[in-house]
């Protein structure tokens, strides 16, 4: 009896299909399937060990330190929400505000999307729902000025958390990415001691373009994490494996609906189970 276990090729093909259909992408899928073959060979898997080992491997790929948003109670915390158009930044800003406010932190919202029609009004509704104050200027005013004022206000009021909602922007638009860099510079100069989270809000329906989004936004404003939204739909969000693999960015939160409470901490186990359900 030779000790070499050969994984059932049909099973591997099935796994490959599930990963590809979950937006894991062909490169990352090849890497995962290749790793599974390697593990099976090294450890001489029995057929029933294949899936659990795959799950363990995927979980280890996604888990990391700093997976949660932790408020430092001794200084100002700033959370900057960035991402391409329509991914759920404004909605998520409202959800985070509510969650923090319920946990008894003082929160201020900054309406730094001064461009899109009714963006300020939209965030205003969320500030009312979350019961937190909102810093806003006129539509079409300078977004950097809003950020500047918001930081001033947060420092003056000794606020725990300042949440900044920015306008959606495509990462291939240099002038829009420059605007975001300017906002980042203002945060760095006006709140150098603040704890800063820069969250990329990524729509779970996004395909491989999610990787370019993460790369370009990271290069521009140095992301600290990702919020994966709309996971209440049928999209699996598999592009996060490639993002984690290339950029080592943690998924911190997931959006699971349009309501105030539809925000969860990211749980790798739940995410991976959902891929194969």
């Amino acid at each position, binding site marked *: 009896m030779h000790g070499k276990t050969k994984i059932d090729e049909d099973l591997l093909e099935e796994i490959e299909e599930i990963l590809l*259909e979950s937006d894991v992408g062909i490169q990352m899928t090849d890497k995962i399937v290749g790793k599974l073959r390697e593990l099976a060979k090294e450890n001489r898997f029995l057929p029933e060990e294949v899936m659990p080992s795959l799950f363990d491997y995927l979980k280890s790929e996604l888990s990391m330190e700093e997976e949660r948003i932790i408020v430092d109670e001794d200084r100002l915390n700033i959370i900057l929400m960035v991402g391409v158009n*329509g991914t759920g930044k404004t909605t998520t800003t409202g959800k985070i505000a509510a969650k923090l406010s319920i946990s008894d932190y003082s929160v201020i919202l900054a309406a730094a999307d001064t461009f899109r029609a009714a963006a300020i009004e*939209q965030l205003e509704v969320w500030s009312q729902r979350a019961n937190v104050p909102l810093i806003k200027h006129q539509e079409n005013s300078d977004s950097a000025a809003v950020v500047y004022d918001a930081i001033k206000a947060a420092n003056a009021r000794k606020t725990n958390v300042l949440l900044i909602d920015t306008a959606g922007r495509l990462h291939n*638009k240099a002038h829009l990415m420059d605007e975001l860099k300017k906002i980042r510079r203002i945060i760095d100069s006006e709140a150098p001691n603040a704890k800063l989270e820069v969250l990329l809000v990524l729509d779970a329906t996004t*395909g491989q373009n999610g990787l370019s989004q993460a790369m370009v936004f990271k290069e521009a404003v140095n992301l600290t994490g990702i919020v994966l939204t709309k996971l209440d739909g049928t999209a699996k969000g598999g592009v996060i494996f490639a993002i984690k693999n290339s950029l080592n960015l943690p998924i911190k939160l997931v959006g699971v609906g*349009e309501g105030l409470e539809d925000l969860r901490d990211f749980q790798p186990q739940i995410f991976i189970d959902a891929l194969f359900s």
Partner: protein
Amino acid sequence: NLSDKLQDVFKKISGKGKISEENITEAIREVRRALLEADVNLKVVKDFINNVKEQAIGQEVIKSISPGQQFIKIISDAMIELMGGENQTLATSEKSPTVYMMVGLQGSGKTTTSAKLALNLRKQGKRPMLVAADIYRPAAIKQLEVLGKQINIPVFSLGQISPVEIVTKSLVFAKENGHDYIILDTAGRLHIDVELMDELVKIKQVVNPTEILLVVDSMIGQDAVKMSESFNEYLNITGVIATKLDGDTRGGAALSIKAVTGKPIKFMAMGEKLDALEPFHPERIASRILG
């Protein structure tokens, strides 16, 4: 890119005269990879590749171009044929007003695109109006009103009452005020939300739209198929509008959606400004997908 990869693959077979089952296998593999990277749906990729394989095998390698280029042309032509050639204009109802109903997932660009279509119609000398039927999203009505003001097009809204009632009354308003086109902006929703999908069905029954346009974010991945099939099953959509094509997404979802629903892609939205809407050009999407 794919073109270079195929040049390499075919270097080995040039001079052998015909494209055959054997020499095409590696080329097919490269095409499969490229399509998957471009977000074309896996099942659509399989069907498409089999189709292309049939067409390519037995073809004489044309002396004037390299086999790699010839193979790319076969693929590109197949894509253009799949996506194009359909009725890509918006129909007009014999009985005024003509109603266009905008539907789709959350954040895909329905509200912005509604305003773009309205502007387009006004430039053609028509008298369109916009209807704010999204009663859920915070400030959605305000958003449409702001856009309407920018382009001097009236927005009909009754606040946050039932969308079915809003659209019913909008028909009356249109007739009384001489509007020949109505563009209904609806709330974003998940195709698996039965209650909200039934709401769309009710709206359709009440206003009998001439066009039901599925507005799709071009960066969508594999979910494009489930989503569009579902919207199509519920509503029998008449067309698709692909948005955010000013980004750098490859846009393979466009191919997938056309392949599974058979419904034509009518427009490409290429920006946030209200004039950023163009008729669909399949050859432009094909060249993006092929990278």
